[in-house]
């Protein structure tokens, strides 16, 4: 039988999707979606002989959703950054190994349909390199890995509690430089294209 890999969802995800809270006040000014292109996430050349990455720094690229810019690694112990990128691994500025108040939840649905943080959402945090708020591995977090390609799982929206306690939603669009329509084995990886909505007023409104 042709293997068909399915991204199995956790029961937790299944339970919490339908609870869209419609009772939020609608008077708040809408927040706008921003798209960030080609955010370098520790790019490396892969040595075709060994398969080993060459030239990587092993450092996370830290990003502030509020300001839409990267944050220096020297500020890693502050709450200035919200989300960090290194190859396929994403970190969140919250949890016992971080200093911010952040957290993350992987929501199943479309980015546009998600208007607010669903009721009952429990934000996970980074507790250890092996226990991150956004799990690593194919089908477990934000991506599938097949035929040597990383593809963001469609319908996965990262609900983020930022380093300073505000809320945002993030959708990863591509892992490859210039977000090619059809990445190939020679596409340059570790370049994120993603879009997000950040709510500065502290509410859970994401629209």
């Amino acid at each position, binding site marked *: 039988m042709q293997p068909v890999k399915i991204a199995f969802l956790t029961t937790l995800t299944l339970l919490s999707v339908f609870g869209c809270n419609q009772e939020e006040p609608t008077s708040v000014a809408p927040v706008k979606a921003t798209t960030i292109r080609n955010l370098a996430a520790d790019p490396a050349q892969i040595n075709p002989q060994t398969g080993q990455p060459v030239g990587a720094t092993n450092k996370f690229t830290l990003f502030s959703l509020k300001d839409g810019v990267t944050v220096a690694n020297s500020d890693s112990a502050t709450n200035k950054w919200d989300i960090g990128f290194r190859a396929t691994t994403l970190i969140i500025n919250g949890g016992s190994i971080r200093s911010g108040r952040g957290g993350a939840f992987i929501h199943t649905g479309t980015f546009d349909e998600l208007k607010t943080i669903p009721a009952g959402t429990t934000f996970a945090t980074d507790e250890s390199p092996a226990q991150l708020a956004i799990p690593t591995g194919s089908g477990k977090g934000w991506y599938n890995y097949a035929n040597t390609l990383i*593809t963001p799982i469609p319908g996965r929206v990262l609900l983020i509690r930022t380093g300073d306690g505000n809320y945002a939603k993030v959708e990863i669009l591509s892992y490859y430089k210039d977000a090619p329509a059809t990445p190939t084995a020679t596409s340059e990886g570790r370049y994120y294209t993603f879009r997000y909505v950040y709510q500065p007023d502290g509410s859970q409104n994401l629209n």
Partner: protein
Amino acid sequence: MLLFVIAIALMGQGPDSTGRATVGRADSLKSRALNEVVVTATRTERPMGALPMPVTVIGREQIRQMGALRLNDVLQEQTGLAIVTDHGQGLQVQGFGPDYTLILIDGEPLVGRTAGTLELNRLAVGNIKQIEIVKGPSSSLYGSEALAGVVNIITETPTRTRASVSARYGANRTSDLTGDVGLRFGKIGLYAFGNRYGSAGYDLTPETTGRTVSPFLNHTLSGRLTADFTDKLKLSVSGRYFSERQDNLLEISPGRAVAGLGRVTDRNMNPVLTYRLSEAWKVTYRYYSTLYRTQTNLTYIDNRQPYDQSYFRQTFDRPEVQVDHYLNQKHMLTLGAGFMAESVEATRYTERQRFTNKYAFFQYEWLPTSRWNLILGGRYDAHSQYATQFSPKVSARYELNQTFALRGSAGVGFKAPDFRQLYLNFDNSVVGYSVFGTHELAASLERLRRQGQLAEVLTDPAAFGNIRAESSVAVNLGVAADLGRQYNLPITASLNLFRNDIRDLIETQAVALKTNGQSVFSYINLNRVFTQGAELDGSYRLPVGTGRLTIGGGYQYLVAKDKAVVEQLRQGKIFRRDRIDGPPETLLTARVKANEYGGLYNRSRHMANLKLFYEQPRRGISASVRGIYRGRYGFADRNANVILDADNEYVNGYMLWNVAVSKTLKAFTLQAGIDNLAGHTDPQYIPNLPGRLWYASLRWTLLPNTKGS
């Protein structure tokens, strides 16, 4: 032709046939088809028409008229069968991949699968008397792998003295030289067969280095010695040897190519002793021993560094005893037991690995009235590496009237985890990933950890430890019609509905990440899938001039889906990223609707065939035109949700037309034909489909002391 009838008659003579009288005119297809003797379905000789399960029989004459050389040529033209390519050309039955169908030669399994596929091209068809195909689970008789069905190749027996030689040449410098001889000295019979088959291969992508199919040459030798010591005690010893070498040259990345030799050897030996104690009792002792071996030696062309130097060696040995008991033609009991020892040794395995399996099976067939036929059977397999399996099956046939018969069967099939899934120990040195069988996983992860190659463990390795056999529950329901008896019309038709529910499908899953960013994979029981559909088959035979024309046709409708995907779609939890429809930079996400799910990859919803065979025995002319349609089928995901849901994820459907004509003059038969007349190719998705292929052959047959045929 005459020989064919004789062979059938000889086969059907024993008291173990059900005793039905041969009905109808001798020249009619339907009476011939329904009375063809089949052994695969029940492990005893039965007229095909009386069987309660779907069975197809392809005889020697039809194989010749098709101009077929290899087993895949024959099977691809049959209703409900598809040839699929995955590490070789394998067989898809009722939506099951190649690893779920058992391929037997004279009832004994062929071994040597690559990634589950048994390369059908390994089998020459020149020594085949008939091919029997049983659809639906047959684990109740044959054990593991007989989940989708069984293909049994019945080879020639030396019933008389005869000989033949044929030579064929065709496009792609494909040549085939076949010879066989049958000798009969009283109670001793000897049959020997030799075949040399070679081709220059072909190239559908001239822009890349190397050919789509590299040049190859193979040889097959087979034979059988029979000795009828008395009427009651008979011995048959058959053997087969196959050897192939292929000169590979392939591009593995732009500008880099590898080259070298690949060899495949396959041999088997099969003595069978039959002792008929009385009319009521028959005992058969069988021993089967086979060896399959491959060697690959590929090096980079530019620097002569090794790319792949590997070998694989599999052995399979099996003694078996079967007892058949007949009680006044109404009750038939079959009991059998055997022991199987299998081993594999390969570059990608830590050490020589062994399996053993003890098994016993029974089958009770009851004919309470002339209208009813009931079969109850089961098999118990006690394996050294996984849990014990019991595979029951029940089937029944009821004759409504002279024209229609209903048949149904329900059974359980299973497929054991194979050596690869248990013992593979493979680090891909080129790409950098690793794959470990479930029994190797713990030790191999520990090795990677010691070597500092392990970045992170994603899944608890203990979850992979107790891998189970894949199993299915299947139901086949059908109706067969024969308009010959009541209406004197040479028309037969059959409809079969099938449903297979499969659980514990073994899939690869990432267990850990390596420091090089690549994954460590192992095997785990994951998915539940189902396949269901309908198969319609029919034939009409009519006189045309002094000859006769047989029009045959078939159609299969198939749905094969992953149950977890169906459930997730129902909940609206599967999405796609539209790269093609919208502007690429938007990469927008949309929810997939349940009716957009195309099911499992590589399955055509519609398959059909239309076959015309014309024979004019008096003038020695025969001709055939066969059209085979394979509807569109999923190839790969292109919108990141892993499932088949978009039009651009399909391979277009296509039609193949094959034609052949032959003329027999005395002892010589000249045949010419063209396969794939329209020259359909699809280099990207169907590399195993060469373009238009012409051929011509000459065959010489020696049949001493007969009036010829």
